């Protein structure tokens, strides 16, 4: 799966609310995915990324506190679902019983039975792949979870079911969640705080109601209206 071209970000200053879900929304090319990849340290930033107020110097240490989920999962095709989930824990030398306990706990949280865990990604359904990807992201119990269009490759029924479960999982775990989506409806469903972006710039941020009732620019109303017609 290849990402689209990287959008140049305009000078941007943004803080994310801890233990809450923030959605980055915008049309294609708005820079929402680029911003998320900067936050994950996958693209070097011109400015500073701060994690718990401290500027990030050692990205690898920070990544262990981040979970990252992309469209269609980004699972490694040569590893089984279980191996994908436990890869980093094994790499860090966790004891086997601790790995097993954490896997079982996560499987219960995302609602994945035991059988699919022994299969390879190519043998799983799209919904199962996303659940495995979420398990993998949560394995090390990160403080922040980054999701890039986690539902867009799924069929409508699976998408609706997984959306329900994801919202339940996030509220239960109370993690800082940053979700990228092109759908305002999806953003509203998950997040109390919405950041609307366009051409690499943050147009407006706030709750859905604030965006709807006090649009900062005509584009905000246009974006809301466009989604209603569909």
């Amino acid at each position, binding site marked *: 799966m290849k*990402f689209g071209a990287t959008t140049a970000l305009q000078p941007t200053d943004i803080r994310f609310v801890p233990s809450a879900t923030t959605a980055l929304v915008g049309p294609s090319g708005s820079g929402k995915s680029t911003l998320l990849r900067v936050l994950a340290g996958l693209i070097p930033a011109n400015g500073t990324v701060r994690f718990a107020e401290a500027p990030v110097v050692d990205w690898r240490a920070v990544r262990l506190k981040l979970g990252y989920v992309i469209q269609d999962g980004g699972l490694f095709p040569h590893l089984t679902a279980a191996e994908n989930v436990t890869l980093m824990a094994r790499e860090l030398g966790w004891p086997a019983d601790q790995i097993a306990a954490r896997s079982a706990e996560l499987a219960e949280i995302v609602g994945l039975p035991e059988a699919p865990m022994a299969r390879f990604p*190519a043998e799983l359904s799209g919904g199962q792949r996303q659940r495995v990807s979420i398990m993998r992201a949560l394995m090390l119990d990160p403080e922040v979870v980054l999701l890039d269009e986690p539902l867009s490759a799924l069929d409508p029924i699976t998408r609706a079911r997984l959306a329900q479960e994801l919202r339940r999982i996030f509220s239960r775990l109370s993690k800082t969640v940053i979700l990228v989506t092109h759908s305002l409806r999806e953003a509203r469903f998950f997040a109390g705080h919405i950041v609307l972006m366009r051409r690499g710039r943050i147009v407006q941020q706030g709750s859905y109601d604030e965006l709807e009732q006090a649009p900062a620019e005509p584009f905000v109303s246009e974006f809301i209206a466009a989604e209603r017609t569909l």
Partner: protein
Amino acid sequence: MNGPQRALLACCLLILAPTARSADITIGSKNFTESVIVGDLAQQSLVDAGLSAEHRRQLGGTRILWEALLAGAIDVYPDYTGTLRFEILASEQLADDSALPAALARYGVGMTRSLGFENSYAIAMRADQATELGIRSITDLARHPSLRVALSNEFVDRADGWRALAAAYELPQRPRGLDHDLAYEALASRQVDAIDAYTTDPQIESLSLKLLRDDRDFFPSYEAVFLYRQSLEPAAIAALVKLAGMISTDDMRAMNSAVQLEGRPERAVAAAFLNERLGLQNEAVVQPGLVARLWARTLEHLYLVGIAMAAALLVALPLGIAAARSARLGTIITSVTGLLQTIPSLALFVLLIPLLGIGAAPTIAALFLYSLLPIVRNTHAGLAGIPASLLDSADALGLTRAARLRRIELPLALPTIMAGIKTAAVIAVGLATLGAIIGAGGYGQPIITGIRLRSTRLILEGAIPAAVLALALQGAMELLERWVTPDGLKIRQQTADG
């Protein structure tokens, strides 16, 4: 010494063993029958003089023998004064053969007097027709413009070939090009009337041909001599010098005939000559049976390919990984390995002989260099073909560079890398046959002997096992490829195929 150390030492000994000399004096010979017979004459004379001497037979062409002599990989080999003047020392423009010893001495090389025969260009006709027309010399040929002349393409093309000859003798005929071996048959079956020949070709006798006298001294002399390193021990030089003047052109033609036309082994022909002329007694050499020969050559061949492939893997994999890491480094690495691939193998051998001598070492080095490109290129392609989203996922998980390479990138690239190794191995099996021209042994040995003696049976004795080995290796590599391909990737392939 502990286990691993012992294993390492054993490996080193194994690598050195085939290149180590088994005798004090090494004689080389070029890749044609006369040179091999003369090499055997030298070897048997030295052994008779109580010296330990071995003969590295049919080692390719002039350049290879000369380089091997200078490098000390061989001590003695037979050559011709014309070749020395016009090929090896061409830049010195020596006036005649008498200037040769001084010129060679500057390279630390000594030269015997003529062995007694000349292997020069000549023009040959059927003896009966020549008598009938009263043709004895090339001058006489000019008076018969209707005679059909056929020449080897090389002789037509050379500046000192037909054009110069025709000018010197005012020859009116228009020659056509014809392969040297076919020319004798064409002459015998009266399809042509005159051909170019070498003065010691055995067909001259067997087909009752007449060599026309070079009455205007057009052709330079190609006297047979031994070249030897001046550091060679005096007793050995004395034994070589004893052969000077002993072998007449008729003698040499008869010996060539015994090997090429009667199929007798060179060693036996040389031994019979020495016994008859010098009273030398040499033990008969027993040729091992077919199975023993095949087995020995298979081991030699596998040795060449195996060592070269192991070394190539150790170097090419890191290079391929480095090439995938940095685009600039990648360009440099693929250009250099690609450039190596374009060096003709013969040129590469000539370059390697001064460094590594002759035999297995330079052959392994050449195979190693040729194996780099397929492995480097496929390692690079396999790594570069991994989707960026997977690398992002690996990075975002917090895998270190090394762990990402080991856990994610190499397993995903493995099928492509294996395909590169397979290509390199199959190419190496074929190329290793060329090692025979620098004395590396293997399946190439019977092939070049077969080409020299025009024996299809001998050529097949090398070519069939080489083809079988290449196929077997390909099959084994495919099994290995399937075995190392991660299961998860096979599923993806299945769904993609279906």
